[in-house]
């Protein structure tokens, strides 16, 4: 359906309205020809002979005349082959690294389709990240979606980079690659990641989709979809293990809100559209593994919680979709602890099936459970000690404070270059748990206490 229309009815923010159209289909791609360049958009509403088009790039400089709109008859597709490894694309999947277009390969619709639950393989293999707090307490499983809930100025980028650097796939288990989607992040952040990938020696195994802070906002809606389509291609057609890093989900949601407002939709919480949940789900649910393919897609979305508020709609809805979360704490970071992971609200929903005997070590589930329980007790003791003073605490409460300190400075804290084996992490866990008397360890099977307790 190659039809061109020569004038617009209306231009409003990121939306343009074309009148008198025929045979246009919902969600199809549109090319908008200006004097000097071509912009892209997609049909977001059809009403009689009127089509509302959302333009990915900026609409400034457009006029209702001197313009031609061409309907392509297809949703947005990108061309994919192994050649995309090591390449850099813009937010709508066009190469921007000067390497020329991708010639060979297949074209896939960036919107993807939901994975049939009967076709999924349940994720069970853990990925060792070398970070004690993650490996021991919120274990990352291959095929999982585990976001980092962060705040502005917190070291989420370093943690993501450290995971990329240290996460390994065991020998003979297939190829590993990273897909990186940048949505509205700063140029320095983008450079940081490129350099981190370089240092980790994976640069030729990274596919980057860049929509930076000064790039068109609307394009941001498609950026993660292009990235995930590339990830699906590499995982399910090429049988590779893919780690997808998407940052920053908050910018993505803000772009969604901007468009929703322009379309005058009924807003939900904090002005975000009512379909924010479904929309985020259409990204996050693209993680996983499927029957008939050896590959996997593991997602680490990064989001900055506005005002560090975990109940804000973006982290809130994300938490309801993803399989856990890693929450960073400003308070811990201010005490000069890296990685500043607040373990209490952090969680990995899939770890139960990927740890313990046959995976990590038999005592792992109990140890994790005990640390959560004891560290939560530490918080109570700390609150008490602020009221009555540390000296007035009972002996056992003092032990808890000591445990809390050891947890933060011995177990949690590690350097950016420190790669700890999961067994090493578990040994450190026993070292600090042994500060507490044996009978306080009520979550651990006595058999393991006999084996590992150092008292």
């Amino acid at each position: 359906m190659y039809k061109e229309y020569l004038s617009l009815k209306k231009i409003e923010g990121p939306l343009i309205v074309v009148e008198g159209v025929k045979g246009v289909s919902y969600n199809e791609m549109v090319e908008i020809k200006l004097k000097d360049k071509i912009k892209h958009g997609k049909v977001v509403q059809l009403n009689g002979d009127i089509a509302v088009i959302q333009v990915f790039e900026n609409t400034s400089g457009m006029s209702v005349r001197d313009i031609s709109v061409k309907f392509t008859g297809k949703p947005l597709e990108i061309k994919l082959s192994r050649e995309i490894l090591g390449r850099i694309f813009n937010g709508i999947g066009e190469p921007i690294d000067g390497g020329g277009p991708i010639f060979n390969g297949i074209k896939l619709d960036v919107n993807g389709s939901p994975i049939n639950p009967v076709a999924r393989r349940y994720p069970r293999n853990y990925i060792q990240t070398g970070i004690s707090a993650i490996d021991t307490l919120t274990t990352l499983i291959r095929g999982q979606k585990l976001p980092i809930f962060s705040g502005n100025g917190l070291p989420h980028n370093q943690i993501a980079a450290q995971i990329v650097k240290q996460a390994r796939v065991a020998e003979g288990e297939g190829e590993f690659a990273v897909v990186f989607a940048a949505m509205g992040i700063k140029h320095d952040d983008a450079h940081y990641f490129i350099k981190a990938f370089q240092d980790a020696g994976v640069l030729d195994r990274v596919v980057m989709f860049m929509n930076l802070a000064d790039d068109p906002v609307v394009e941001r809606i498609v950026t993660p979809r292009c990235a995930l389509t590339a990830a699906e291609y590499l995982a399910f057609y090429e049988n590779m293990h893919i780690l997808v890093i998407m940052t920053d989900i908050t910018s993505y949601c803000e772009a969604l809100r901007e468009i929703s407002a322009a379309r005058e939709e009924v807003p939900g919480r904090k002005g975000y559209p009512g379909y924010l949940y479904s929309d985020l789900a259409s990204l996050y649910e693209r993680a996983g593994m499927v029957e008939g393919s050896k590959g996997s897609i593991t997602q680490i979305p990064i989001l900055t919680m506005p005002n560090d508020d975990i109940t804000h709609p973006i982290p809130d809805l994300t938490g309801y979709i993803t399989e856990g979360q890693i929450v960073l704490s400003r308070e811990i970071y201010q005490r000069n602890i890296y990685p500043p992971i607040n373990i209490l609200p952090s969680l990995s929903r899939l770890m139960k099936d990927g740890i313990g005997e046959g995976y990590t070590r038999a005592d792992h589930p109990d140890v994790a459970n005990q640390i959560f329980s004891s560290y939560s007790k530490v918080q109570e003791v700390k609150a008490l000690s602020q009221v009555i003073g540390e000296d007035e605490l009972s002996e056992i409460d003092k032990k808890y404070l000591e445990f809390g300190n050891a947890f933060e400075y011995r177990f949690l804290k590690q350097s950016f270059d420190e790669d700890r084996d999961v067994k090493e992490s578990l040994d450190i866990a026993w070292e600090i748990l042994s500060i507490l008397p044996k009978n306080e360890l009520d979550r651990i099977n006595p058999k393991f206490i006999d084996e590992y307790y150092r008292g």
Partner: protein
Amino acid sequence: MEGSKGKVIYVNGPVVKAINMKDFKMREMVTVGEKKLIGEVISIDEDLGTIQVYEDTTGLKVGDDVISTQKPLSVTLGPGIVGNIFDGIQRPLNIIFDKSGNFIKEGIGLETIDKTKKWYVKFTVKEGEYLKGGDIFGIVEETPLIKHYLMVPPNVEGKILEIKEDGEYSLDTILIKLDNGQELKMYQEWPVRIPRPVKERLPIQKPLITGQRVIDTFFPIAKGGTAAIPGGFGTGKTMTQHQLAKWSDADIIVYIGCGERGNEMTEVLEDFPKLIDPSSNLPLMNRTILIANTSNMPVAAREASIYTGITIAEYFRDMGYNVAVMADSTSRWAEALREISGRLEEMPAEEGYPAYLPSRLAEFYERAGYVRTLNDKEASVTIIGAVSPAGGDFSEPVTQNTKRFVSAFLGLDRKLAYSRHYPAINWLSSYSGYITQLEEWYRQNVAEDMLNLRAEMMKVLQEESKLQETVKLVGEDVLPDEQRLILEIAKLIKVGYLQQNAYHKEDTFVPLNKQYMMLKVIYSFYKFAKEAVKVGVPISVIKNSNHFYKIIKMKYEIPNNFGDSFDKFINDISEYFTNLIKEYEGD
């Protein structure tokens, strides 16, 4: 009205408007566009009809056809449902998989249970008998666990003119011809939005035994009752629902995964065929029906999934079964209502939800009940709905309105979840309205004093929460020993009783008689310890005693078929304290 066709004039996500719709009926099922997407008419305004489409509308054009199917959105009810997994409009996901591979594409068409598969039918009626709605005319062994009773549809009756002999037939075969020309097959269709009729509703009589201590002992759910499990993310809603689906003593489980994670449905699909039902020793999948509309599947089908699930549940109830429906999560269903309402540009009420949210919730929960069926059997549908409040805040509209229509409320607590106290059901904010109705049952089937013990334990927990306020200010050490004892006993209840380990083979399911004995042990310890404290035994002696730790570990160490282990344990405790008290009295 054959051949009436509408023309699409408007497309916005799942909402499509069409003209030339005069001949269409409200709530009628239609197909839209070249791909024949499935939709439902949700409003008619003269010539203009609004349709919600259950599949992705990408590619739909203005001018596309809307074709009538002449029937409302219905489910096909017959053998082949149990053990199966369906999407929100009862299309089997494995058929979708055969047709479109790993990913769900639109335009699959209206598929349902396999009508060509043959089942062995054993008839229970003879030629000449008079059949009315709800009567059973044959039996099919659907799974080793479930006998599928073939029933006359509620609105059909007549004398049997012709009947087939026992044997293997496919669903499409006409099995019985009635004198008024009506025919009976192995299946019937029923519109999802209309509750199936029953003879009468009966009062609640029995608990739904779940094997979860905090539920069975403290906040019981009744067969035919309703319960809500609200909780922020990460508090263990799905975990709790899975535990209930695995262990509750219902005959049939309908698990509706409404707007939740794909991997969770896969987990059920992988785990349930391996898990063994304690009462029958057969895999749990033999009694389980799954409805999956994961969060990335079309939102309109999410709205329908709840109704599809409950209608299937009612059908099995009509056979005389006790059915439990787990809806995870009703909030996603409410959000689907909101999303569609928004696209229809309806006037929003609270937080953007449509004004009819409370009435829809009420209609849904009221489909639960303990009933006498048309064929005079006692049966029930129990509904357990998870609620996912935004920001974990229970004052939001879905939680608040749900609270109005359910009798048991199991509030999950973020703080408990953070310290990995699972199930994270808050014992202070939760309640069950079924205690008085079930009192008699507990008295007769568990023990006379079961509910008294429960009350004593609740009292300890209440007092402890008050004492904790003081402890936060001045520390534990300054409290008198009687009060410190309350704190220690509360710890026993919390760690030794309320916490339950879903991954431990003894602890994942605990029968009521073991629950009772555990309560009795804790209570005996409490009673003796109180006396001991009175005669001056220091609290540290009590809490460091071997028995204290044995109580905490008893859930793991004393097996479910415990013999006289508990009696011995209580004797030990009694002996220990008698000696201890003597020692201190002597001073």
